[in-house]
């Protein structure tokens, strides 16, 4: 029985199933949020999670990953993100119900009353401070900070992993070259986050939890934060082993596990497979289909959408905001598109000009 569950879980945790599954779960939770915001749901989750965490370390391979001292934060990350997502969703659902009945939000009803910072706020802060000091001391006594062998630049550990909070970026390296995964996309994450208040012109949902008054904003942030950041961190920590190969949670980290790399460039698909010609010598001509595709994606798609489907959005946001928003959104969208293209077509690069380190 135990082995069967382990095999099932290992099967479930392959990159495609893991990612598509997470996306589906997020969609299901969002759609049936009324059900998922019940107390019993989060209680069931925590009971199930605790039971799993008690049972699973009986497996030596699982135990090896889970008991690394630096992986404790990831467990905290998983549980807190799920708990707080639930908590926010619950209050959002309640507020949405109240709005339908014509009542103000919980925050609106309580917000009229103001209380003194001393003692009401200062006490909460003080209790938090004492509690967390205690937690930190206990944690520090119980688990020793890791120290490995002395630094040796000649001996590369396998796998070499970035610090856990950057594993999302390292995971993106599977799909993009470092100049995109490590430089351009992180920069756009920062710029995009900073642009949020200036792009979101929806005046509703300011200072209270709600979902129905800003469904797109919530879904957008969920997918960015939970799907492409937190879930990538989890994936990078627990499921990426030697040679950055993918391993199920109960799988032995076999250094010789080979994943055949049969990825093909778009140019090869276009010239060799579709037209039956050899690849042109000139790099620009060779990559012309990919360049056209990417240029079209970034510069033809936004005006096209703005004229048709997203006309209302252009009117609401104004043309400048709309264009900035579209550029950021399209960069964000490049990641799932590339992932999909990799899984379905084994696509290596849309544009592949290694001569100039310009691969997309």
């Amino acid at each position, binding site marked *: 029985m135990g082995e069967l569950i382990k095999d099932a879980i290992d099967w479930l945790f392959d990159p495609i199933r893991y990612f598509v599954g997470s996306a589906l779960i997020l969609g299901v939770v969002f759609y049936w949020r009324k059900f998922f915001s019940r107390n019993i749901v989060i209680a069931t989750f925590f009971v199930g999670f605790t039971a799993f965490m008690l049972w699973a370390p009986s497996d030596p391979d699982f135990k090896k990953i889970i008991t690394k001292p630096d992986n404790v934060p990831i467990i905290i990350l998983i549980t807190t993100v799920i708990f707080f997502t639930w908590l926010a969703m619950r209050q959002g659902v309640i507020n949405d119900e109240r709005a339908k009945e014509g009542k103000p939000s919980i*925050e609106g009803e309580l917000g009229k009353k103001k209380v003194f910072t001393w003692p009401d706020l200062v006490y909460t802060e003080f209790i938090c401070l004492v509690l967390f000091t205690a937690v930190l001391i206990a944690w520090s006594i119980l688990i020793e900070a890791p120290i490995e062998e002395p630094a040796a630049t000649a001996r590369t550990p396998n796998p070499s992993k970035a610090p856990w909070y950057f594993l999302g970026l390292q995971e993106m390296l599977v799909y993009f070259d470092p100049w995109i995964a490590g430089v351009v996309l992180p920069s756009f994450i920062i710029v995009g986050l900073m642009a949020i208040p200036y792009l979101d012109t929806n005046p509703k949902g300011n200072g209270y939890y709600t979902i129905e008054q800003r469904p797109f904003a919530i879904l957008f942030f969920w997918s960015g934060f939970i799907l492409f950041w937190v879930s990538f961190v989890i994936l990078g920590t627990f499921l990426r082993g030697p040679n950055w190969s993918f391993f199920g949670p109960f799988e032995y980290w076999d250094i010789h596990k080979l994943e055949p790399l049969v990825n093909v460039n778009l140019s090869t698909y276009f010239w060799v497979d579709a037209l039956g010609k050899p690849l042109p010598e000139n790099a620009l001509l060779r990559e012309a289909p990919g360049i056209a595709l990417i240029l079209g994606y970034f510069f033809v798609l936004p005006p096209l959408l703005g004229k048709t489907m997203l006309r209302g959005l252009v009117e609401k946001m104004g043309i400048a905001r709309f264009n900035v928003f579209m550029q950021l959104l399209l960069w964000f969208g490049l990641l799932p598109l590339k992932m999909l293209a990799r899984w379905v077509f084994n696509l290596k690069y849309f544009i592949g000009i290694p001569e100039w380190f310009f691969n997309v």
Partner: protein
Amino acid sequence: MGKLFQAIRSSQIWRSIFRHGYPDTPRNRTLAVLSNTFLHLHPVKVRRSGIRLSYTWCMGGLTFFLFLVETLTGLLLMFYYRPTAEYAYQDIWALREHVPIGIMREMHRWAAHLMVITVWLHMYRVFLTGSYKPPREFNWNVGVILLVLTLLLSFTGYLLPWDQLAVWAITVGSNMARATPFLGHEGPGASLLSFGGLNFIHAGDDARFGLLAGRFVGEGALLRFYVLHCVGLPLIAAALMAIHFWRVRKDGGISGPL
């Protein structure tokens, strides 16, 4: 006993420090916040809705608390640690072997991990309550920079134990800089910055070299990361935090419905 307290409270020393009575009246509660350098970053009164745990999750405050823990434990660690390739690793071992009740490094590391999580969750909460909307747009931006600084603080600190874990994590992380467009020697466009066959951007002067003070993670990188970790980044973060907290107050305290 009561008389003793009374005597202390009415002494010149006590009254020179605290300019108000016990904060149990509206007047004294107001003064308690206004006359205290640290507390005055808070407004005198806050929304009842805003201070509920289910609303704020306490994550911003916890992040600040963890920053203070890091400052304190970091200061203690600096007494024992020398940022050179020769001593760094030994000093970390010595911390474990020779320092009585040596949990400072543990506390420093676990609090750092926790701080990354609390700062993410703080951003998550602020987004979900729409608290970045006017008039708080600017403060959201300060917050984003603080988030990046938190990650950079953690990243620079990751190298300091000078063990295999540290060196290779920083190697992997900083390898990305090699591919910076135009500024990294393996980045797109870098080869365009050349004159008469002479490349301006090469492994000896690109973005990664600037970050690591060398072509690989070596002694130069250790010192550079140490100085940034202990002095440079905390100073910037502290200044921005002051702005961040002050703007929370000026923009109307903890967010709530308008």
